[in-house]
């Protein structure tokens, strides 16, 4: 029997078995940002340690950045202190930092692929759970904590146990108005938010093969919301075409040699898996979450579930209480206060194009605050070249500067009170968007734009 990509890459990077029985795994690419790294740098100093491979770590500024004005110093002194700490730390330890004033500023999971830093067959870690995003390029990528960041700094390795691998095959052909976001929300709704614990997810099948790289990034991004620390897609022509010409990707003969390595690292035709799940996406409709975790999702024409049918009755009941929704309600027609387009899940150029195609020639509904936050400076510049910024501005949406923004509201972009937000981000946890009483509905960027112009949750297919 053949091997799957995950096990091939793991073996390639295994340094040795540690006395605990865990594997010592070499990390090919380490990405850091301002929120989870300062304490790790401090631990290095306290122990008199250096960064072993500084050229394999790259830093981004994203979580804390304001999106209205990024002139230094930032108005929020704590935000300024955090970025200054990252500037100082990266300089002291010899790490490349794509800072706020550079052309490659952006969300760490947007700029990694954009720069071609993330490549097939690598191990990629970052102190951020959405590191699973990078698996879209055929890498093993997962989030770690700050003590593990310290370990990667000091040794370029981690102590890890190898997870099992579940292949998720998506069959069928997507209908118009249905996007990668809808697929991953459906997978999480089916397998549950705990379903992936102990697994890495391989996404495959015709629907995945036909997705462009940006859609693949969206799917892998939310693996962690289904409990899977890593998710990946086998590298193919889409991957190689995406990578060619990017800043950190080799050229000429070396590129050809790279492609040959990348092809060899993909799962074999007869690869074995620990588990399989098959989904037909042919009749999938736009998905919207109604509750307090990303598994609480229904199709736009469906009714909200009855508590008596729920496997997680306690959580579902808490969800209804927080959201002020009721069993049997339709999600369609819920009046929204805020529309947020952006995040590492859906802040890429194709996401902005899809949202702009809905916003074009329409106006944000009265009373709706609509924010468009590009995932990176490069995404923003490309969108401006295509005139997407003008489409959004004419439609009454705010066109803001790149950052994580209202996905987790560490900057001034926050919900107020119990506002209801249509959001292209990844988490609808209680309080996630900055107000303890705030309420989040996750959906695709096109669905967010539709909700913004109609003032209520709308089936985007009616506007296309």
């Amino acid at each position: 029997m053949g091997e799957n990509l995950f096990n091939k890459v793991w073996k390639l990077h295994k340094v040795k078995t540690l006395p605990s029985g865990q594997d010592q795994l070499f990390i090919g690419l380490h990405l850091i940002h301002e929120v989870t790294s300062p304490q790790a740098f401090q631990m290095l100093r306290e122990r008199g340690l250096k960064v072993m491979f500084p050229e394999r770590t790259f830093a981004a500024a994203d979580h804390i950045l304001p999106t209205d004005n990024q002139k230094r110093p930032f108005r929020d002194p704590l935000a300024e202190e955090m970025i200054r700490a990252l500037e100082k730390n990266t300089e002291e330890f010899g790490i490349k930092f794509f800072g706020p004033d550079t052309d490659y500023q952006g969300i760490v999971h947007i700029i990694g692929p954009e720069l071609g830093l993330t490549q097939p067959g690598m191990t990629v870690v970052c102190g951020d759970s959405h590191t699973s995003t990078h698996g879209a390029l055929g890498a093993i990528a997962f989030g770690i904590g700050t003590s593990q960041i310290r370990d990667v700094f000091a040794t370029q390795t981690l102590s890890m146990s190898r997870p099992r691998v579940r292949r998720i095959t998506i069959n069928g052909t997507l209908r118009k108005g249905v996007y990668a976001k809808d697929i991953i929300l459906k997978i999480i709704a089916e397998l549950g938010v705990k379903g992936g614990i102990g697994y890495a997810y391989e996404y495959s099948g015709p629907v995945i093969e036909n997705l462009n790289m940006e859609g693949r990034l969206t799917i892998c991004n939310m693996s962690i919301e289904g409990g899977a620390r890593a998710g990946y897609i086998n590298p193919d022509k889409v991957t190689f075409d995406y990578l060619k010409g990017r800043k950190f990707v080799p050229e000429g003969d070396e590129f050809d040699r790279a492609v040959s390595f990348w092809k060899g690292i993909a799962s074999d035709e007869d690869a074995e898996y620990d588990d399989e799940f098959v989904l037909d996406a042919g009749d999938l409709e736009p998905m919207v979450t109604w509750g307090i975790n990303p598994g609480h999702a229904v199709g736009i024409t469906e009714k909200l579930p009855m508590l008596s049918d729920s496997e997680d009755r306690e959580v579902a009941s808490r969800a209804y209480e927080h959201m002020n929704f009721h069993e049997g309600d339709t999600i369609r027609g819920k009046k929204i206060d805020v529309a947020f387009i952006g995040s590492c899940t859906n802040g890429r150029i194709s996401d902005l194009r899809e949202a702009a195609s809905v916003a074009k020639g329409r106006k944000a509904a009265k009373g709706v605050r609509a924010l468009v936050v590009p995932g990176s400076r490069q995404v923003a510049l490309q969108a401006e070249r295509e005139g997407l910024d003008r489409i959004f501005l004419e439609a009454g949406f705010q066109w803001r500067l790149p950052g994580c923004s209202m996905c987790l509201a560490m900057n001034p972009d926050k919900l107020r009170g119990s506002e209801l937000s249509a959001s292209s981000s990844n988490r609808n946890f209680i309080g996630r968007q900055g107000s303890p009483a705030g309420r989040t509905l996750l959906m695709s960027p096109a669905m967010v734009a539709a909700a913004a112009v109609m003032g209520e949750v709308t089936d985007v297919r009616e506007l296309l």
Partner: protein
Amino acid sequence: MLVSEESIRRVIKGRGMPLPGDDIDTDRIIPARYLKCITFDELGKFTFYDERYDENGNKKDHPFNDERYRGAEILVVNKNFGCGSSREHAPQSLMRAGIRAIIGESFAEIFLGNCTALGIPAVTMEAGAVSELMDFTGKEPEAVLTLDLDKKIVEAGLPGGGNGKVFKIEISDSAREVFLSGTWDTTSALLSGKKEIESKAGALPYLNHFLMQGE
């Protein structure tokens, strides 16, 4: 490798605190606005902040506000505890609020790894046993729990002292090993393989112009 006695986690004794609910995410354990810091030092004050205080700063009903559980050291939780964001600020905050071990039905993986890296055993039990232990700690806040990682049991002591009910716990062999040997801080174990690390770097295609094709 030198291991200090203080790093060994064999038996942890302390009062229990029940914290019921599935899928308690790390945004709830420590809201994002408290991540605006460059040290973990102050985080103990903000554990479950938005569940413990209303918008005016008034206390709400929550185990961490309950006087009966002041000083409790072992948290008892349900399924998928610590899901969501990878923020180590979450277990750091629990640790700084006095928590030394967590017993639950299941844990999110990144959270579990973070707990282990901080020397906080996060062990699992069957749903029925968790529910029984939660009821017990609910009724008997003064009772002492004795978590024995060597024997893989937790004993819920009688309030007046003496032997109480014993539950079997599960913990991965590798986590149990690092706690018993006091080597849960992995940096030195990893550093001891410096030569092997360098030789691995020399064999990876993408660090060597793809002149080799892996294995």
